[in-house]
């Protein structure tokens, strides 16, 4: 056998693989509505498998739902494709990332038909380029088997007895981490760096992601307090039948994180996309959210499942202008870093 033959064979192996792999994946170009979203939405345990077939049946269309990884990955992809959009809808933009999407002008305005039933404090964008579909309060989750009486306020956290007891996420790499930082900004205004300095000792560590903080550290017993969503305890109650993990919304007031979706500018199927946004806030879609997303539906007509009785809530919502984020965020992060000794 000559050398040429070997080369051909070597080249053939990867080529065959490429062909095989491509064959497995392509073939959904004919579908009509393309939605970009994040992994947990379309996974088996997410709302996707329930709500997408409903929409397909209702309108006799095919939906091509593409998961991009995290919501940040999805937004980056959409910005990259700005001039030649492949998606009709971006689903899963949270209020903290929204300014990134808006500044690139990749979404068009659409006010859904039943918009007026959405409570005013949940409206993400006055121009309705992003329509909210779920939300949650930021919360401190505690392990009731380790502590009886959790801190009830930001001020309580300063106490010596919480030394090394709280896990927070890094606001630069995690959205609950950023929400928690903004919660302190909303509560303390310009004084927030001084506050962080005063709770520095209470922090066990600043984890890079929610998964690492919550699953990797908190549930492994590294510390009894963690920053998460107020809905987290409902998950444990629903699927693990335990009320061991409980939440606290601090007395100073609650802070919201809201998720929404928008129609892509220049979308090939914008009519259908509008119908999807209408569908997204309808009860049919909304009632699937609590037990799949573990977030609160924006439609107040939805009956919450029993496990949500454990979820803390408040009427005292601390305001913070999300559109102001773009201009102030850098500075806040810098101040935060120097406050915790970075």
């Amino acid at each position, binding site marked *: 056998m000559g050398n040429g033959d070997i080369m051909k064979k*070597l080249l053939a*192996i*990867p080529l065959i*693989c*490429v062909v095989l*792999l*491509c064959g*497995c*994946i392509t073939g959904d170009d004919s579908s009509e509505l393309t939605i970009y979203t*994040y*992994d*947990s939405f*379309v*996974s*088996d*345990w*997410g709302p*996707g*498998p329930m709500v997408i077939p409903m929409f397909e049946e209702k309108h006799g269309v095919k939906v091509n739902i*593409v*998961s991009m*990884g*995290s919501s940040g990955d999805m937004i980056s992809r959409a910005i*990259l494709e700005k001039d030649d959009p492949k998606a009709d809808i971006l689903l899963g933009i949270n209020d903290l990332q929204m300014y990134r999407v808006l500044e690139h002008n990749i979404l068009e305005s659409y006010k859904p038909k039943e918009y007026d039933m959405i409570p005013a404090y949940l409206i993400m964008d006055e121009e309705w380029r992003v329509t909210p579909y779920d939300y949650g309060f930021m919360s401190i989750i505690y392990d009731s088997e380790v502590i009886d009486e959790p801190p009830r306020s930001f001020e309580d956290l300063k106490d010596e007895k919480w030394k090394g007891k709280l896990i927070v996420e*890094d606001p*630069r*790499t995690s959205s609950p981490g950023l929400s928690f930082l903004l919660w302190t900004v909303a509560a303390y205004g310009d004084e927030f760096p001084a506050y962080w300095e005063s709770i520095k000792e209470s922090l*066990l*560590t*600043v*984890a*890079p*992601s929610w*998964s*690492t903080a919550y*699953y*990797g*550290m908190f549930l*492994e*017993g*590294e*510390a009894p307090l963690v920053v998460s969503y107020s809905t987290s305890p409902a998950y*444990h109650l629903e699927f*693990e*039948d*335990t009320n*061991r993990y409980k939440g606290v919304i601090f007395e100073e007031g609650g802070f919201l994180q809201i998720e929404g979706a928008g129609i892509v500018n220049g979308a090939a199927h914008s009519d259908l996309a509008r119908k999807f946004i209408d569908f997204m806030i309808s009860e049919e879609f909304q009632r699937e959210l609590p037990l799949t997303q573990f977030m609160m539906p924006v439609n107040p007509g939805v009956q919450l499942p029993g496990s949500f009785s454990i979820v803390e809530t408040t009427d005292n919502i601390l305001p913070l202008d999300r559109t102001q984020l773009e201009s102030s965020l*850098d500075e806040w*992060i810098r101040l935060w*870093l*120097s406050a*915790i*000794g*970075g």
Partner: protein
Amino acid sequence: MERRWRLLSIGLLVAVFLAVIVLPLLLVLFSGIAGEKGYHFSFFSYILTDSYYKKAIIFTFEQALLSSAVTLLLGLPGAFIFSNYDFKWKAQLMAISTVPFVLPSVLVVLGFIIFFGNTGVVNSTLMDIFNLDAPPLRILYSWRAIVLAHAFYNIPLVFRLVSSVWTQIDDSMIEAARNVGASRFRILKDIELPFIRQGILSCMLLTFIYSFTSFAIVLALGGPQYATIEVSIYNLALFYGTYGLSSALALLQLVFLSVVVWIYMRIHIEKGGQGRKVLLSISSLSPAAKMGVVAYAVMIGAFLFGPMLGVCYASLQRTVLGQTHLTLHWFKEIIAGGGKSFLGASPLEAIFTSFIFALLAMVASVAFGMWVAYMLKGNIRGKSIIGVATMVPLCISTITLSLGYIVLENRISLDVSFWAIVIIHTIISFPFSVRAISASLAKIDEGLIDAARGLGASNLHAFVSIELPLLKGGIIAAAVFSFAISLGELAASFMLYGGRYTTIPIYIYRYIGGYRFGSAAAMGVVLMVVSAASFFIIERMGSKMQF
């Protein structure tokens, strides 16, 4: 003739270097991603005077030095045992102890917490034994955790690289020394240590660079008070969007590391020695020495396997009805295709894809590694520069390089993602191949080859029948590392796979994104098993190969 070939070879290498590394990087710069504000000296003076960055730079050097020292300290006895003694399950142990090298950092963090954490295995055992109320060992969330995690990642490097050189030592030299009455310690100090110096230095260099540019470990186990240069680059570029400053930092990092590599290349390496070491049976050791070996094995075994077992434990743990059970639930979930619904690939397909990438990257990386190692062998002019250039892939961030390939792909409107992933995996594993093969090559006695030629052997024949067998250890080490690096690589694969070439690390990453920590850990176990098996097979096939 020789000279012409050498020049041609260098020319070709420079061309490849320009095409696969410099071109994509320039594209990134031109696309305005990195250079929107241009490079100003003010960036550099800002970095060098700002207290935050000054602190980051100093800490980067400190932890990298400490990490490489600790790695060597913990790894050298193991390399000694692996290269001097024969024992049961040796090949399997070697294969498993290379696994830390491929683990995604998120699983390393998980493993460390389960093992070293406040309620982890070590602390709860100590608390039980000594009746303590509080966990005595507080190593996580500090610089100690960063150093230990870097050692965890890099000890496999010492095991393999150093022992691949060590086994080349000529037994007759040791025999001669023993005959004149030298003690074991004297032999180790005067003959063996100088001989394996190249291997040790290579490990130190690779570990130093690796720890210098380490990122996820520093973020997760250290916390924000321990920023390194790489962490600052990431934060600046991805979070603040200040590319000017982050590019300046990246450039500064490249300069620092180039200086380190340059110094390393200037160190003169002594030649001499060839042949194979006769391995002694471990039972031939004196009882005291045996005790020492066992004590070390237990310690290092716990350190390397503890966190890995922690990941296994996490993959079997599930809370139902308020009780935590051990179950195969998460494995069932990945087999049932819980991930397929959003990844479009079954776990088996992901294993297959990972395998193809790793195989291609391994072949390419070893081939290039040999080529360059040969070029670096003689005392050629510009040797230090070539040496520095071969380390560049370790000093630039994979993310930047991947961005370059994305831009390139858009320019030529061709779908080259598959090959881009193969090329990037080759690029980042190539420095390991060069170092592993160079370390072996440096030990080959030129006289031997000249003698063979003198006896009428052709160049090719001399190469195949004499050099290749001597190089085998280095080549196997290079192959295993290239395979391992490709198997564990996430950043470039994730940026370029476009939903089509799902690898095992992408599976793990996206399971975590889907809040399925148990499934992610289960997939992590799959990765560990696949890697260990592959390393074992590569090693087996390599050592069985006859020339």
